[in-house]
């Protein structure tokens, strides 16, 4: 059965880096993997130095496939399947009015995106070509709007085909054996507080437990004895490790499932993506 992993978190914590690493890890283990960006403009084209990221998956040098799914593109594909008429399809999507309607009909784009993401397990549309799909999703607020869209739309679109599909989309998203939710954060007070709130919101919506990933974790594996020291690095290290002690305590107490992703001192995105999680050296 296909596995779908949603990666989200506040802006700037390293969602995309982590998502790319996950994709690399799965791809290396032999599973056919697709990394999907959500949004209107690609980030990975700059981040991974790839010329063009498009709706159709392209294989990257890392081994995984990459694509970007916008609400408009997902809706287009859906409409084409449903309308089965190329000219009607063109009329709809080339016209200014329809663009307004698509943009303003709240939840429509989000529903189309979720429909596409879950199409494999729901056996709807073209058959699933990948074993694992990693979704580099929107940041927190927009992500919550995304996962809330099907329920909201179910009320508004009771009798249309999209309404009927909303039900099966929700079922798939609540299915733990298919969908995983990874929430990325940093080992600092504010991000940890926010990620626990996000976990709770997702749980309320889908009745499913997420995994918390604490990014940029300094895996300093020796004891840091309390030395009086003017060494600036020592002070920085102490502050960082204290934050991590606080983070560990807080997350352990919260009883949420969590793990850390190591801080790797490099300016190269490729290094971060490809270095093993077990890497001990910074």
């Amino acid at each position, binding site marked *: 059965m296909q596995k779908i992993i949603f990666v989200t978190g506040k*802006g*700037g*914590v390293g969602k995309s880096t982590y998502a790319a690493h996950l994709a690399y890890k799965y791809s290396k283990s032999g599973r056919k993997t697709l990394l999907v960006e959500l*949004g209107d403009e690609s*980030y990975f084209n*700059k*981040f991974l130095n790839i010329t063009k990221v498009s709706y159709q998956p392209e294989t990257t040098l890392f081994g995984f496939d990459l694509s970007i799914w916008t609400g408009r593109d997902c809706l287009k594909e*859906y409409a084409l399947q*449903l*309308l089965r008429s190329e000219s*009607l399809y063109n*009329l*709809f999507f080339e*016209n*200014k*009015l*329809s*663009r*307004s*309607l698509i*943009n*303003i*009909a*709240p939840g*429509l784009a989000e529903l189309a995106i979720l429909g596409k993401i879950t199409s494999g397990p729901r056996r709807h549309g073209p058959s699933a070509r990948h074993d694992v799909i990693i979704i580099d999703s929107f*940041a927190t607020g*927009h992500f919550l709007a995304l996962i809330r869209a099907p329920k*909201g739309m179910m*009320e*508004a*679109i*009771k*009798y*249309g*085909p*999209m*309404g009927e599909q909303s039900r099966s989309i929700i079922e798939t998203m609540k299915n733990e054996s298919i969908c995983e939710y990874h929430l990325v954060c940093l080992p600092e*007070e*504010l991000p940890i507080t926010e990620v626990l709130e996000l976990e709770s919101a997702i749980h309320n919506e889908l009745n499913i437990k997420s995994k918390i990933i604490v990014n940029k974790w300094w895996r*300093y*594996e*020796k*004891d*840091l*004895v309390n*030395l009086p020291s*003017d*060494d*600036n*690095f*020592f*002070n*920085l290290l102490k*502050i960082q490790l204290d934050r991590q002690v606080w983070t560990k305590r807080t997350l352990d107490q919260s009883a949420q499932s969590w793990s850390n992703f190591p801080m790797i*001192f*490099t*300016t190269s*995105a490729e290094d971060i993506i490809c270095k093993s999680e077990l890497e001990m*050296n*910074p």
Partner: protein
Amino acid sequence: MRSTKVIVCIGCGGVGKTTVSAALGYALASKGFKVLVLTIDPSQRLASTLGIEGKKNITQVLNFEGKGQLFASVIDHALVFENFIKRASGHGVDVEPILKNRLYQQMSTNLSGSQEFTALEMLYSSYESNDFDWIILDTPPAKHAIDFLNAPQKLAALFNESLAKWIKIDDQKSSWFSQLLATSTRQIIQILETLTGSEFVKELRQFFTYVNDWQKKLEDRIIQAHALLVGPQTKFFLITGLDHAKLSEAKELGSLIDRQGYRLENVIINRAYPEKDIKINEISTIKNEDFNLEYYNQWKNRYVEWTNQRSNLLHKYTDQWKPNFEVIALKDYFHTISDKESLKLIASEVLEKIKLE
């Protein structure tokens, strides 16, 4: 007659826009000006430091010690939008049905451009009040820094002529009226019905009927705000971080923003280098046997190497930018920035490095 100056801070989510905006406000106020900082999403601690926690209106920051006056406000998105609708709908119009409309609720919170619109709305009304020497606008977190500039036009583009015609047609009237609708418009509505069902289309139509009352005012406001943004009193500061992707995006943004008539004055690279200088091999002997010195030095050396790599990266980009605009690198402070003391630190760094006049 005061002439208010505006600084708009753009940048993607997570780079420290809100903190830097607050520090900029603090810096200007300490020069003796009357300053307003409009923030989007301050942390609870920062909001508490500024004295605006839980407050819906513009509030004076009372424990401010400088020569001028510092004011701040969190932009309450839902409230600003609602107030705008009320004013735009005019006297005597009952706005309750609109506010309760399900689609309106989704639109006002999730619609691309709506958050940017309320930020602009607050900026514009604060500017019109003529109460301040400086207004600093923090912008909504976005995936790409350019989003703030494109969003309002996207919002305005949603309302167009065909929509207006569509909603004027009463379903029950005769086919004479439906002939007023272009064939293509009718077909599109039919397609939408196929996709979403007739219930949804009915609701959508009802929603546009409400919107029609104030959509012109929304468009007008966007145009006014745009004029303010390209005017001589407004400067843009791009706040970014130190990595390849962000810096190359900043580079593109620079030329784009210029062509659109906005004044990009400074690129601020936040958390660019360690607050305190870190040098290799300061500790060579430690008497404590529990402390693994070799392991410690490995880490420190790796950290210093990384800092140097980042410094090279920084210079590579900034040398290319230099003639066009100022590039400022701010320190990466070891401690979390949220209280008054840390805000003062950044404010003095800002005063030292940025020409503010």
